[in-house]
């Protein structure tokens, strides 16, 4: 059965795009923290734990939130929605913050709340807690965006019925430089609600296209 991308979010160059719509734009980004907080406020999301997350988790959380918050409860059977994310810096952003807190022996106060984020797959945990997901999950680290790796991994889950659908994509952040693209992949399904975006086949070309969105290619029809 053919697999389709039925929804996506994209974060890059100060822009946030959801299903072909530009929903947020900051021309000059002072810091990632300010950028993501402004988006969180604009979207009127209420989830106090958001503020406690590290940058990678905030980025992944917002990607999934913008994709899943309008889904009808129960559309995905318990355990059927998988999450497969990837990036190149793993949790280095937070690792460096933690390292800084233990660098000075005379002021040695390692922060437990920073330490818990020194693993890249914690972002998946945050997404799963938020949306009560209990499906398969994996966090992959590769030097560059690798659509073939995502394609193989997600296809294996869906083709072998280990998942009915999958959130998959790239969530990369280091310092104030960030880029993310998360897609909802489903087996071709007439029951899936139609978005203004429609759908596109789940293949390398589509993943590359969504990772390199430009005004011409996406958010203007």
């Amino acid at each position, binding site marked *: 059965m053919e697999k389709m991308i039925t929804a996506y979010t994209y974060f890059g160059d100060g822009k946030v795009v959801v299903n072909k719509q530009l929903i947020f734009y900051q021309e000059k980004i002072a810091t990632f923290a300010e950028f993501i*907080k402004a988006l969180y406020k604009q979207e009127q999301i209420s989830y*106090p734990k958001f*503020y*406690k997350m590290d940058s990678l988790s905030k980025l992944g959380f917002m990607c999934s939130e913008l994709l899943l918050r309008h889904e009808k409860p129960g559309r995905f059977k318990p355990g059927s929605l998988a999450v497969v994310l990837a990036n190149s810096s793993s949790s280095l952003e937070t690792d460096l913050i933690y390292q800084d807190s233990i660098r000075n022996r005379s002021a040695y*106060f*390692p*922060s*437990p*709340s920073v330490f*818990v984020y020194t693993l890249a797959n914690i972002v998946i945990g945050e997404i799963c807690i938020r949306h009560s997901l209990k499906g398969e999950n994996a966090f992959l680290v590769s030097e560059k965006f690798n659509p073939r790796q995502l394609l193989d991994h997600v296809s294996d889950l869906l083709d072998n019925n280990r998942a009915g659908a999958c959130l998959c994509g790239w969530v990369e952040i280091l310092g104030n430089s960030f880029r993310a693209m998360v897609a909802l992949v489903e087996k071709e399904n007439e029951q899936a609600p139609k978005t203004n975006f429609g759908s596109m086949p789940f293949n390398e070309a589509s993943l590359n296209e969504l990772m390199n969105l430009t005004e011409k290619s996406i958010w203007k029809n």
Partner: protein
Amino acid sequence: MEELINKLKKEVITQLNLEDISVEDINPDSPLFGEGLGLDSIDALELIVLLEKNYGIKIEDPKDGKKIFFSIRTMAEYITEHQKKA
């Protein structure tokens, strides 16, 4: 005591990233965990670090934590008592 309570409220908000909560929102007698501010186990560890970093107080017996961190007021009382001893 009231001065210390207000200082503690500010420190807890900063240390625990309670961005949507103001000093006025915190009742010094409300439980910090479960209900009230709804803090979790990682927050408890952060409060232990806060006491050590800002007040030089190290909690020797983890069992005392439940009493010390019951509310902002119990924290303030513990700090006052401990600083008198020092």
